[in-house]
């Protein structure tokens, strides 16, 4: 190895180390602030306390927004899993023109500015007279979650050997049994990882949700941004710490199911 290469290699590891610190900074700071007793975000906190967590119980509007977010994220993920999987099967197994185009179309909401998609939907829903916030949120979030499901399930299906279904049929399974006992277990990890990431994407969405909230129906990110604007105090950090914990749990489950390296596949 030449000296130049050795320097390049050392630089690479130094930058990687700095990048790890940089990437984790917001998460670590949030958790540290949430356990401190300082109301003005002093770091490191003068004293540790749970006062911001105790406040969560009577923070106005927090729990309704969490319930709305979980309902919308859960239901939209479920609908996307059903519609997205059916579509992925059609794309992998079907023999019709434009299958690639359909796949691109279903993943495209991920590539367009969320704000523009949100505005377009807002105007579309108004046109047909839909003004109910909760229903609008659900309909919109199916579009947000669909790309995650289609992308992952499509990748898993293209590795699935469909002759296994014929084998199950020959061994005496009905078509429905063959799907339930062979196809569904084989796709299990894909359902779980795509479902989790779709759920998180819906939970975290701001630019689309903002157009479909009213005074009574708010999702968690909308409610949080409102707190940030009205009275920024570490209560927001405590809520954030909860969301970070959720992300950690999702990552650990994902690691157990498919491995971290697989999660990093793009």
């Amino acid at each position: 190895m030449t000296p130049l290469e050795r320097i390049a290699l050392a630089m690479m590891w130094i930058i990687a180390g700095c990048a790890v610190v940089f990437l984790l900074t917001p998460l670590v700071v949030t958790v540290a602030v949430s356990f401190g007793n300082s109301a003005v975000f002093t770091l490191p906190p003068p004293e540790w306390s749970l006062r911001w967590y105790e406040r969560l119980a009577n923070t106005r509007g927090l729990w309704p927004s969490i319930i709305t977010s979980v309902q919308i994220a859960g239901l939209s993920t479920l609908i996307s899993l059903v519609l997205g999987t059916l579509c992925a099967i059609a794309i992998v197994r079907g023999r019709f023109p434009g299958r690639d185009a359909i796949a691109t179309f279903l993943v495209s909401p991920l590539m367009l500015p969320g704000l523009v998609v949100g505005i377009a939907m807002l105007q579309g829903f108004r046109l047909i007279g839909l003004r109910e916030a909760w229903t609008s949120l659900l309909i919109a979030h199916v579009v947000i979650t669909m790309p995650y499901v289609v992308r992952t399930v499509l990748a898993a299906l293209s590795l699935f050997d469909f002759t296994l279904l014929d084998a199950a049929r020959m061994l005496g399974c009905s078509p429905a049994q063959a799907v339930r006992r062979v196809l569904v277990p084989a796709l299990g990890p894909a359902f779980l990882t795509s479902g989790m990431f779709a759920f998180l994407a819906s939970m975290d969405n701001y630019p689309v949700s903002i157009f479909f909230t009213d005074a009574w129906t708010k999702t968690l990110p909308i409610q949080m941004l409102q707190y940030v604007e009205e009275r920024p105090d570490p209560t927001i950090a405590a809520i954030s710490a909860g969301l970070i914990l959720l992300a950690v749990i999702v990552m650990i489950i994902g690691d157990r199911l498919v491995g971290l390296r697989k999660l990093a596949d793009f």
Partner: protein
Amino acid sequence: MKRDRSLIGWLAAPAVIYLVLVYALPLLWLLARSITGPEGITFALFRDFFADPFSWRVIGNTMRIAGLVTLVCLLVGYPVAFALARAKGMRQVVLLAAIILPLSVGVVVKAFAWQVVLRRDGVVSQFLVGIGVWSEPQRLLFTETGLVIGAANVFLPFMILPIYSVVKLIDPRLMEAGATLGVGPLRRFFRILLPLTLPGVVSGIAFVFSLAVSMFVIPSLLIGDRFQTLATLTGRSFLLMRNEALGSVTATVLLVLAVMIVLLSSLLARRAARFS
């Protein structure tokens, strides 16, 4: 079985019909509305928008910030992608966790954290004063530098992962072969590694640039209302100013920009793949 194969295509129908109705048609409707006035097709809204110097300042802000964010992400992300491909054991776990975990945390959480970090008494200011770079505490919050730091932090994984996906496919023996043949390290980098990683670099740049052009929450929290980008102006004109004519024009400009980035990057990625 033959009949099954021809019918199976219909399984795509529910999802496709759903997305056409609630996503594709509204987008087309948005485009159509931005070019129709009381007397048929007109580009008056766009003419007014592009004739206003304020619009050009907003477009300039958008492009400058997105360009800087992309540059920072590329300079940091490129070596990190190589480190990730080489890392084993504990290093690998730490790197992967540091990249994937922030991806699953919402943008409101991270932008709020950067508000705390970039304050005058925040961690960055304390650190820089501590090591003597700054003589007194400064506020990075509500400055362009602060915005670029925060946005680069949020979008960095979208640069690392596409580059990593091509780096991990490179056969390390290629570099050894180059060395055995007496090619110097700099030439080896520019003639072997860079061309091979170009498709990943192109898609990373496209990802980060399009995310940075359309970011909305991050600038609202880190720089405030005095600094407008296309996305914040779009959001404001619908949510606060109730100026939907302006909003649909900026939304259309954003949409066209996003589609152009996607098309251009897939074209360039195909070129780069063929070249290597």
